């Protein structure tokens, strides 16, 4: 399948200044190679601090990697200028964990949804309104909430709205960074279904977005994705089809994650090896 977005030898280092004055380099991503095919469903899993979120912001061009390349279709994103990136960014959209802080609380639902169009297109106000209504229907929200304040919505509704906004510019890649984690299980199931709908195999590849679900919940990752990528200490330690990762995990980090998420596994005195 055609590779849409890929990372090669991606390294991201952050410098952290200790209060004693010692400067330390933290390597958040360490030579990461990843290929996201058109229309794919991919999950990136790993414990806290494994580099999942850094990978997300690098792929979405919100952070510049320290070295390595990111390719999107024919463009090498790592050497584009800010202006050139502006035309690429709409095609790679990011949804964050906490839907409560994702919007300007003073914005109505309509204002949230039309902002991307105001910034990126020359659409008329009427057209924006019409398209916003279409988006609401697409993510399973009621049409009549356009005038409601974004702060008045429930957690699940807000996460739907965040996904709707991310879809406004018809992205080719949708990255969700722990976008399900803060939600109740019954709401997680609804949002996961929405993601499955958006990337349904019946939708032609040309218009079907690739979805990258970043999570520490291996269960949801396995249920949603076709392929799972496991990260630890900034590296990809294992990746492959879901059946392989769940049924026959090779790396210790995958096995530890699996052991912790297995339903009904008795709690032992022994700490799982990480």
């Amino acid at each position, binding site marked *: 399948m055609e590779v849409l977005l890929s990372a090669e030898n991606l390294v991201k280092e952050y410098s952290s200044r200790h209060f004693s004055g010692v400067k330390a380099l933290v390597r958040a991503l360490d030579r990461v190679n990843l290929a996201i095919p058109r229309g794919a469903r991919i999950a990136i899993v790993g*414990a806290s601090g494994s580099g999942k979120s850094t990978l997300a912001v690098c792929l979405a061009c919100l952070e510049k990697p320290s070295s390595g390349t990111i390719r999107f279709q024919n463009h090498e994103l790592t050497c584009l200028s800010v202006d050139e990136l502006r035309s690429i960014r709409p095609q790679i959209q990011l949804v964050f964990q906490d839907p409560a802080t994702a919007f300007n609380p003073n914005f109505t639902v309509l204002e949230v949804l039309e902002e991307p169009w105001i910034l990126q297109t020359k659409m008329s106000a009427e057209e924006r309104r019409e398209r916003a209504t279409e988006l609401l229907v697409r993510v399973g929200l009621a049409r009549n909430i356009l005038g409601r304040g974004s702060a008045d919505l429930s957690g699940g509704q807000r996460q739907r709205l965040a996904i709707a906004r991310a879809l406004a510019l018809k992205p080719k890649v949708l990255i969700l960074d722990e976008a399900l984690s803060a939600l109740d*299980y019954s709401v997680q*199931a*609804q949002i996961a279904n929405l993601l499955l709908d958006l990337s349904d195999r019946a939708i032609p590849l040309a218009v079907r977005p690739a979805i990258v679900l970043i999570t520490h919940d291996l*269960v949801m990752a396995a249920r949603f994705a076709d392929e799972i990528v496991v990260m630890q200490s900034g590296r990809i330690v294992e990746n492959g089809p879901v*059946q392989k990762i*769940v049924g026959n995990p090779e790396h210790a980090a995958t096995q530890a994650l699996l052991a*912790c998420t297995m339903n009904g596994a008795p*709690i032992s005195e022994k700490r*799982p090896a990480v």
Partner: protein
Amino acid sequence: MEPLLEVQNLNVRYRTRAGADVFALTEASLRIAPGEIVGVLGESGSGKSTLATSLLAMLPVNAAIDDGTVLLQGTNLLKLGRGELTRIRGSRISLIYQEPSVALHPTMRVGVQIEEILRAHSVDSRDERRHKVRELLDSIFVADAERIYSSYPHQLSGGQRQRIAIAQAIACKPNLLIADEPTASLDPVTQREILELLKKLQRERNLAILFITHSLELLDGFADRVVVMYAGRIVEDSDAREVLSSPQHPYTQALLKCRPRLERIENALSDSRIPVIPGEPPVLSSRVQGCEFEPRCPERMQICRERVPEFSNSENGGKVRCFKFGG
């Protein structure tokens, strides 16, 4: 067995700024035996945190307790004065929260923060306090207790900070620990470690734990009993294994179905969707006449709309609030 804690018919309501009422907890009754781990399973707005805070009489000022008693070994906590409550909190009942980084003082060494609890509960000798904290840290951390004692919260990981919060909570040897989503902000490996620590404390100290969570797989193999809450009411109360393997209340059944299971992933690969609970939970600003789950219930009957069911005994020895079982 004589219960350690007995909650009878507790009703809690919040008054919003607009002057409206939110009925957060309705007719909640619960018993916890000494050394028992009771899981409270519920989603946002189900009343589980209100239940936790009312057990310590720590409700916010806009809350009103309309009715009910909270008996700790026979003493009604809701009738106690502030001084008596302060003596009980920390020494007989403790609470840990979801976010340990908020619970800890950012510029105090964590060891000293644990000592503070001992001082508040009149361990007057400084050496004795220090000695006790060292012992406590040794039992809670696998290694490095010495370094952790003199660390600041920001130098510790999320899991270590939660361990410090637990150390604070158990420093004065309470009989009951209320844990309100203590692992929600941690990754799965650390989550397991914290659960193992709590289980160990339960065994070693005969500590009863009320474990509040929205995550049902955490309770599997951990809790002895599970109480399921929906829209401010307890709807099912049963042995943990029974609730998780053969849930009785239609809400519990629906909730369990919408969580995928790794064992069943293989069949799910066919582009199918996850079962969901249709609709949304009710707004609790007015009392509904019938069962709160009725509008979303796949097995609703005429009577469900007319009145609220009472608890009935289910086949697996638990209690269910549903007309299917009599009501």
